[in-house]
């Protein structure tokens, strides 16, 4: 923290000296604290030496996906996000015969098999299911989105769900126009954003544009999952301290996860480490990990004329049951917060799922 203060004060020589010390201290510290310190030290060093971090370039996206897969398997955060969002979408789609989900961060499509399965088992049979997935451009021009789409199509055929997929490549969600998504009049739309919207905050006006596009899609529901932390304050020191506490808690929860093998742990930590690096070392448009709290997102959504939709008790039950599978039963906590669900470690909430509907939409 002293180093961060020095950085904030632009005291380069002091911060340089301190950062070297941290490296040594961190290496000698066992457990989660040591690892967190190491990642933060590296991020500080990058900031001090103005090294451009190897992050968020499309060259890294397949490696990112790999890290995320390990993180997905070994701790409940992503599964919690998917399951709670899916439950909200499922309830919003009740009784509809033609549904369309727009996924702002398609990646490997891990959220959708469970939703398709739930739709397949709906009383009366599944609706026609359309999925539009948005993803970043790939360096080797391979069509990763299309491959994911094909895999999901195969699953859909296996379980008897009528399925259509379209993938859109975009550097930023703000580049998309709602008209190209080809929303059909008879279909009910859900927009799903898991850890994606905060990136838009790095460019002024981008979030407002995207929320405007979302409204134009006339969705029945918008599911939003974000980190429960304020890593977007104007002052570097505050951001540093906030993120130090947040990621320390996250790393603690990883240590507490029973049954995680060494490699999974390292990969999951590396996944988080990249976020840490971005929060601490980057600025301006490069700093995309601009996390904000649920209260902040509530303000943003409401000023874009969205009304909250309460996430029901089914989602709460599913989430609680899910956590029981992840060992650290004493550590993980699901909390309900005015219709939103939060997952935390001990007393600290770490991610929040909320659901919204455009205000002008008639029920």
């Amino acid at each position: 923290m002293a180093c961060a203060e020095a950085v904030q004060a632009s005291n380069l020589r002091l911060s340089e000296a301190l950062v070297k010390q941290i490296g040594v201290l961190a290496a000698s510290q066992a457990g989660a604290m040591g690892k967190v310190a190491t990642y933060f030290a590296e991020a500080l060093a990058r900031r001090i030496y103005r090294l451009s971090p190897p992050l968020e370039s499309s060259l890294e996206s397949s490696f990112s996906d790999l890290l995320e897969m390990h993180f997905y398997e070994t701790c409940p955060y992503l599964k919690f996000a998917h399951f709670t969002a899916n439950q909200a979408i499922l309830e919003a789609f009740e009784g509809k015969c033609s549904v369309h989900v727009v996924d702002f961060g398609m990646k490997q499509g891990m959220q959708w098999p469970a939703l398709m399965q739930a739709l397949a088992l709906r009383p009366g049979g599944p609706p026609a299911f359309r999925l539009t997935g948005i993803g970043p451009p790939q360096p080797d021009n391979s069509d990763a989105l299309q491959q994911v789409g094909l895999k999901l199509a195969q699953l859909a055929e296996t379980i008897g769900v009528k399925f259509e997929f379209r993938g859109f490549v975009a550097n930023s969600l703000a580049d998309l126009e709602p008209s190209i998504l080809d929303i059909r009049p008879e279909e009910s739309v859900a927009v799903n954003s898991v850890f994606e919207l905060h990136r838009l905050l790095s460019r002024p006006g981008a979030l407002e544009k995207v929320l405007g596009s979302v409204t134009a899609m006339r969705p029945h529901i918008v599911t939003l999952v974000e980190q429960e932390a304020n890593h977007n304050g104007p002052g570097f020191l505050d951001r540093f301290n906030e993120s130090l506490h947040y990621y320390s808690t996250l790393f603690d929860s990883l240590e507490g996860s029973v049954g995680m093998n060494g490699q999974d742990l390292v990969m999951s930590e590396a996944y988080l480490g990249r976020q840490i690096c971005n929060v601490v070392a980057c600025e301006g448009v490069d700093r995309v990990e601009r996390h904000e709290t649920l209260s902040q997102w509530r303000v943003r959504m409401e000023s874009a004329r969205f009304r909250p939709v309460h996430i029901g008790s089914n989602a709460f039950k599913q989430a609680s049951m899910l956590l029981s599978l992840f060992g650290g039963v004493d550590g993980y906590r699901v909390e309900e917060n005015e219709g939103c669900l939060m997952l935390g470690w001990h007393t600290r909430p770490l991610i929040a799922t909320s659901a919204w509907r455009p205000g002008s939409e008639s029920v």
Partner: protein
Amino acid sequence: MKRGVDADEEESSGIADDKVLKRRKGDADADADGDGEEVVAWSSLGPDLLYEVLKHADGRTLGVASCVNKQWNKTAQDERLWETICTSHYAKSRSTTSGMIQQLRSVVLPLGGFRRLYSLHLLNLLKPSSSPTPSSSNISSSLSSFAASSSSSSAIPRRPSKVPIHWGKDELHLSLSLLSIRFYETMCPNDVKKL
């Protein structure tokens, strides 16, 4: 028929009689003369009759039964038996129709089947939260190996059976989600690779 009557008597008492069954099998080696006729009856129980008996066993018993010998293993792996186990709460609900069960079947079977649903997913949700994870995962992995391979002669972990054996639709739904995710993860991506 005497054998049939014996089987019916066994059926009506569920788990307790399965324990008796196991004890008899154990006794068979020790005391070939004493329980002579009953031991012969059990080990030469035809697959159809065995199936009828196993219809009334719970999941854990079924898993254990599949370790007895090759024939028992084959019969105990019958999907219909595991379907009954997974849908026991459905059967109790008056609003369940055969259409709903058929719908469930049409989703679960292609995704891996009821045996996998039970052994890989549902079982993990049934362990009490107070039990230490390693022993539970041993049990679930033992049972899943029972389900997945034939005639495993590995030791059956004995533990006090205080695990709740009843579950509701919430556990089933979560297990179904996990089953579908697992299926998706293990789908071969080679079919979809371009060029």
